[in-house]
């Protein structure tokens, strides 16, 4: 070819690096990431700051309001609320975020494969999805929970397994309409393979949906876990999660607010931080949003 060769654009970052740059340029995303980091730090390093362990019982202080000795006060059996809350937060953070990532990932995988492949793959996957939709999730988890008394990762799997179906159906529908768009057609006729088209052309357009779904799922998973715990199926006493603490504390919310106020406040903070990160990620994925171009 008789073209005048020009230098390739220097310093052109890869797509991933560009995405990271744009996430970090977003004030909300940075705030959210910082908050989330602080919460993790509090959950895992915080217990070492206080002298009380979550299993300890202080018989000298029962239902004490927050004080210098017990920062968040104590329960009616004399356990330290600070230690209990952080212990619960460890569980809730892990359960919430892992379950959300798993369920949204599963929804994206099933939805795009079914929508893009069509035919029998679509029918088989949607049949499975519908089957899970009609199963009473709470009962199944309740029946199965005695089997994994000690293993929280199994609880995460079980929670995630019952959260992805509605999103998967939405993803499938959107994939079908994206599949007919001209840029997907163009990629197909350029010789781009189906897996690559799904990853590069379809998933980015589902970004907002998946991120909103993922952030919502964090709180849904935390609350679902607390619901299960309330009925004695999720995290079992004496271990605690934010859900069990809130469930136990709500009864005495007006008279002994410290029993549940701290746990509820931290839950709100977690959900807020995840939402901020999600908003930033969504805008970074969409070049039409402000700050799209360099």
């Amino acid at each position, binding site marked *: *070819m*008789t*073209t*005048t*060769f*020009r*230098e*390739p*654009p220097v310093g*052109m970052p890869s*797509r991933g690096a*560009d995405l990271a740059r744009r996430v970090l340029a977003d004030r909300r995303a940075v705030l959210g990431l910082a908050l989330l980091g602080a919460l993790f730090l509090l959950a895992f390093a915080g217990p070492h700051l206080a002298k009380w362990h979550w299993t300890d019982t202080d018989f000298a202080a029962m239902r004490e309001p927050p004080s210098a000795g017990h920062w968040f006060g104590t329960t009616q059996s004399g356990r330290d609320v600070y230690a209990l809350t952080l212990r619960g937060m460890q569980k809730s953070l892990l359960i919430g975020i892992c379950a959300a990532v798993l369920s949204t990932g599963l929804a994206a995988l099933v939805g795009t494969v079914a929508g893009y492949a069509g035919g029998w793959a679509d029918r088989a996957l949607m049949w499975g999805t519908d089957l899970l939709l009609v199963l009473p999730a709470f009962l199944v988890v309740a029946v199965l929970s005695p089997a994994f008394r000690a293993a929280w990762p199994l609880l995460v799997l079980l929670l995630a397994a019952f959260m992805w179906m509605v999103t998967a159906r939405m993803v499938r529908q959107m994939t079908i309409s994206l599949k007919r*768009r*001209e*840029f997907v*057609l*163009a*990629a197909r*006729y*350029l*010789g*781009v*393979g189906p897996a*690559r088209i799904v990853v*590069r*052309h379809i998933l*980015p*357009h589902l970004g907002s949906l998946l991120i909103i779904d993922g952030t919502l799922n964090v709180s849904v998973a935390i609350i679902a876990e607390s619901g299960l715990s309330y009925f004695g199926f999720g995290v079992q006493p004496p271990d605690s999660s934010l859900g069990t603490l809130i469930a136990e504390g709500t009864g005495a919310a007006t008279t002994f607010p410290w029993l549940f106020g701290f746990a509820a406040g931290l839950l709100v903070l977690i959900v807020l931080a995840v939402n901020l990160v999600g908003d930033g990620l969504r805008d970074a*994925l*969409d*070049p*039409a949003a402000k700050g*799209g*171009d*360099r």
Partner: protein
Amino acid sequence: MTVLEVRDLRVTFRNGTVPAVRGISLAVGRGEVLGIVGESGCGKSATALALTGLLPPGARATGSVRLRGRELIGLTDAELARVRGRDIAMVFQDPMSALTPVRPVGDQIAETVQIHQGAGRTAARARAVELLDLVGVPDPARRARAYPHELSGGMRQRVMIAMAVANDPAVIVADEPTTALDGTVQARVLRVLRAARDATGAAIVLITHDLGVAAGLADRVMVMYAGRAVETGPVDEVYARPRMPYTIGLLQSVPRLDGRPPFAPAEDTADRPRLVPIEGHPPVPGRLPGGCPFAPRCPVAEPRCREAEPDLRPVGADGRAVACVRDIRDPAGVYPRPVPPPPAVPVPSDRRWRRPVLEVSGLTRHHPLYTGGRLRRRTGTVRAVDGIEFDIREGETLGLVGESGGGKTTALMEILRLRAPQAGRIAVLGQDTATLTAARRKALRRDVQVVFQDPLASLDPRMRVADILAEPLTAHGARRRAAAGRVGELLALVGLGAELAGRYPGNLSGGQRQRVAIARALATEPRLVLLDEPVSALDVSVQAGVLNLLEDLKARLGLAYLLVAHDLAVVRHVADRVAVMYLGRIVELGEVPQVYHRPAHPYTRALLSAVPVPDPPRERRRRSVALPGDRPDPADPPAGCRFRTRCPRHAALDPVRARRCLQVDPEPVRVGDDQLTACHYPEAMTP
């Protein structure tokens, strides 16, 4: 007598932040047609909406619009509603969305008569039928009871015109009235508009981007650029002796059916002279450069052009005015004439010695038609492509033309799939697509690439230009670094700067986007590029540059093109050979000069005669061949010759010879050296 007078009209959008119209003045007399021409974003449509008081919320119009001496700006909606339809009427671009889908069109026409004239129901209905007859709707009493979706596009637009003239308005504002219509339909609608003007004496403000349409209908024209008038005057004067560089550029960049550029020296006899593009792209409203807004694109701009925006100043006696600091008398020398590059890849000049790149024979694509929801029943077959045959040889462009519904795009998509067609054979570079393995098919995709009509739709909006251009390379196994290295080279190939690599498609202009789409198609060094209406979404000034680029690339890289287009003038400029499609069949095929000069098939003749010429005296003389009726349903084509229901030649035949058209489906016959036509009585052979 002036019926509409506009003074210093200004329109802003988004609460005053985006100025769309920046002070225009005009006057239209009774029975006069004023053409407002310009490219997208120049403020034409905003002007039309301001004249009729139909601006969207958030937009504001200031200045003065006087209709028969009555000021319209500042009237309330209720007051305007009494004026609209009675004194000033509007014809929109898309009649489908301008008509109510749930009521018969006759009722809709009758409604305007009832509201403004206080006529009774029966009288109004009778008047509606009369009006439909006036605008040339056949069988008006029956059509009055039809719903909009039951009518064809041209018929709907005639209904709109009937509604517009229903109350004898003083002014009709027609905003791109024929842009959405096919060529032969456009010719008929323009004739109806002219007849309506003659019958009612209404003044017409015709807004169009098509210089040919304005040339035929307008008495005076106003050329708009960046929200202002840059040149006005009698249509003949402005077209023959333009004095503003933008007008000159527009006239030179329009592809013409005869291939002759305007203002060319007589000795220039090249068979296919190049179009002269205007560099750059029209400014975005709200982000205008300082000084003359055209200065950044003007080939003869001077430093003083960038200092202050020139006012429209009168030149000559007959109401001509120009907004340019220079006094240009000779339009020929303003733009440098581009020189075509010599072919870098030599191909034998005789077609027979060149290797075929694409061979298609008997290609068929039928779509089944179903009824019902749950219990689907096959009720028919749309014969989108019904046995077509052609070949393309290396270094050659075949234009596939015809009106919508002819099957052009279906044929292109069928080739693009590189799979076995429903019937017939497709061979690319000698390889039959029916016998390809998956791996071979993927390898063959490198050699067959595509450019779609709308680059905004065909480029992934979430990918940067660099990633878009690297994609075909990585898809065919190139390493990511190597692919990234080719990006700058590809951008240079299509005349774009490397600094665009980091941009997203949404932040490029239309012309830049289509260039990126072309660069992507060329990334794998294909042999055959399929072009699906590659310039129809672009403004004329930008379109010329893209057409020249396609031509240069063909010469430089030895490409072959299959160009699908509805614009015969574009095909005239770019293609070597042309195939005309009608209802899924190729009715004529041959070398461009021959077919354009001596069309043998009556459909080709009609198509060619319907193309408006941007040359007012010639355009007014032009007599287009009228095709009666509408295109038949492709699910139920006429027996015998498919064109016979609309064929003027068939209608003129004696019954004995006409019987052959009714009974025998015509096979393509040779009528010239390299010209085939599917007609029993082709032009060259009819005495």
